[in-house]
């Protein structure tokens, strides 16, 4: 941890060959099991080059969290994760004073009844030192001596006020602690924020970030993801699965199937030793892809139409 005034040492993964160009990143990410397209790789590349956070927004289950994890794996660096939830506050996101320890420290000082002012002041300085500070993910990422990947997951779940707390970290890579001063990053972390788009994020936050919309993958990419994650499935069925899921996504659904659901389905098909798709097997396993009653009924009707 460095105090205010230290020069910001701007090391990232700039030396890592995998981060040297968007196309190198596509290859690198594939080597750790993540299938990225040119757009994803470009944004991640720029985030690393420009020291800017990336905000990845899109429907659930499209590989947002996995992207941050894969970037860390590729860089061989630590992943520090802040999982957001409603009610998350400063003390869980940034830091907290360890008041238990502080109180015990005061207790330990008790014998000296009638402490002088001077003594009290030095005790106070003692109490608000790093020893009594509990670093939460944001501060932890800032304080790390080596470059890390900071994942702020599902940021749309926190209230607007909490979102504001993160801005200093995202813009300046520093945290101000009134009792202690400003903690600045030694090496800027690669920051990935994700949002399932359940709420509009603030302009201020968006302005500080590079923006990446992660939608359902193209047919080709989804097929490649299936093959990567469920290799037992074989080329042909993987292509059929991708095509079928894309077809279902075209229906007027309450919730369209995501990549996670495609993978669940693919695994099930393998377990059932299915070689090629049919309306029958699809209908029988639809509940792995669709979760709403209305969606299930609609899709079953469509598939039955094909059989007739």
């Amino acid at each position, binding site marked *: 941890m460095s105090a205010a005034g230290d020069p910001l040492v701007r090391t990232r993964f700039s030396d890592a060959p995998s981060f040297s160009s968007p196309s190198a990143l596509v290859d690198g990410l594939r080597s750790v099991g993540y299938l990225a397209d040119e757009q994803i790789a*470009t944004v991640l590349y720029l985030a690393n080059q420009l020291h800017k956070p990336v905000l990845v927004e899109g429907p659930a289950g499209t590989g947002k969290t996995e992207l941050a994890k894969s970037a860390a794996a590729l860089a061989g660096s630590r992943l520090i994760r802040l999982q957001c939830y409603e009610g998350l506050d400063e003390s869980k996101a940034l830091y907290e004073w360890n008041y238990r320890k502080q109180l015990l420290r005061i207790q330990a000082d008790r014998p000296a009844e009638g402490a002088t002012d001077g003594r009290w002041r030095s005790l106070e300085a003692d109490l608000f030192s790093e020893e009594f500070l509990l670093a939460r993910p944001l501060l932890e990422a800032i304080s790390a001596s080596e470059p890390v990947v900071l994942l702020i997951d599902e940021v749309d779940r926190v209230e607007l006020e909490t979102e504001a707390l993160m801005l200093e970290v995202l813009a300046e890579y520093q945290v101000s602690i009134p009792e202690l001063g400003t903690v600045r990053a030694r090496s800027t972390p690669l920051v990935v924020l994700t949002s399932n788009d359940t709420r509009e994020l603030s302009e201020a936050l968006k302005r500080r970030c*590079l923006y*990446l919309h992660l939608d359902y993958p193209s047919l080709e990419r989804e097929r490649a993801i299936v093959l990567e994650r469920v290799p037992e499935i074989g080329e042909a069925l993987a292509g059929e699965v991708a095509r079928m899921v894309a077809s279902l996504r075209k229906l007027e659904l309450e919730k369209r199937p995501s990549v996670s659901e495609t993978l669940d389905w693919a695994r099930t098909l393998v377990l059932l030793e299915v070689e090629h798709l049919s309306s029958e097997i699809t209908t029988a396993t639809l509940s792995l892809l669709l979760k709403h009653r209305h969606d299930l009924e609609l899709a079953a009707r469509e598939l039955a139409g094909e059989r007739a």
Partner: protein
Amino acid sequence: MIGTLTAFSDELRRAGLPVSLTETLDAVRATEALPLAGPEVLRAALAASFVKDVTHQRAFDTVFEVFFAKAPAPAPLAEPAEPGGGGERGGGDPPGELDAASLAAALADALSGRSDLDLTRLAALAVERFAGLEPNRPVGLSYYLYRVLRGLDLDGTVTGLLEQVRAGTIESPPELDQIEDLGLRRRLQREAVADRAQVLRHSIEAELARRLAAVRGAVPVARSLRRNLVEDIDFMHASRTDLGAMRRSLAPLARVLAARLARRRRLGRQGALDFRSTIRRSLSTGGVPVSPRFRLPRHTKPELVVLADVSGSVAAFARFTLHLVYALGSQFSAVRSFAFIDGIDEVSRIFAQSSSITEAIERVETEAAVVAADGHSDYGGAFSRFAARYLDAVTARSTVLVLGDGRGNYHPAHPEVLAGLARRARRLYWLNPEPRAYWGSGDSLIAQYEPSCDAVVECRNLRQLERFVSELS
């Protein structure tokens, strides 16, 4: 590059995207950090700085095509073959171009997935062959698009292919070859054809935009291609497709609205210190209150009462309104919704029971008893009936939302009834889809209702709805 980027961001701003100096500077830095790479990398880099909302992606892409995508060899931009130009250009294929028959064959193969011919390449060939671009004729892109699609007979080819798929007289593309279930295979095959046709159409548009921009300049072409962003589409004139796009923006908005309405009720996230519990716990640490205990804060969801005009004069708005009500339903502990024309009926149950918005709207349209007399809106009458039958729905905890144009077909307004509701409620807001300039003209009653409302806001599009939501305090 900086000059182009400045012009580019000006154009995005004119297209309605919220672009400030920050975004432009970010884009400049991004392009500087980029290694030499293809247009898709540049597109991604610029989009990362300029597009912070998916619904803006399309508008961005259009402007990008015009400004940055390289126009290929300008061969087809040569002077028209015949003097006089325009009209039909018969025969006389310039050398080096595909003849009509082989182009048709290439199209059929590409659409059915039997060839590797790249669709963007095919688009370029088609534009070259059929567009007959004349730089100095003041005609828009849609004219050329029409010519190319007709020359290519895209629609006819697609119909023919789908027919062949249905009849089973065409080979399926290799990736679907092994599906034995014929019904399913054909379904997927048809979709594949339609998908590729869609891609091809987009590529042709992009190709035309590029070529036109190369001769006429980027800015005028971009201007001619400008279309409303989702948030600027007028509710009153929204098509079904528009509505689909709006619907996606609506759910997040409903959530914010709910949060705003709820906010005043939970000041301070951490509850008050629970003194007794703290002391009790402190006994284990020798009386030192090591673990202060806090009471849980009280979260109460607000109550919402929605009164929505579903009459013909606001039909498109009404459909939108029902989407909003549906989205709000998941956010409030208690939403009671009422639809009215000249009668009024509670539709909360329909919304609760329907498993989809489509079903809900259908049922509201067929089951709700919203017509009491002649089926023309009667605001005074509907409010009076509401007060007589459902007054209990409105309490000091409710926020009332009235959605409608306030046009009462010259029925009496009974403003005192609405005033009575407003007094019972915590808040009463009115969202009006009609342009403010028309308020008070003809049979508009909005001026008589306005004094009872906490606010009457013009709400013609998502942008205005969003502003209303964000200004709620």
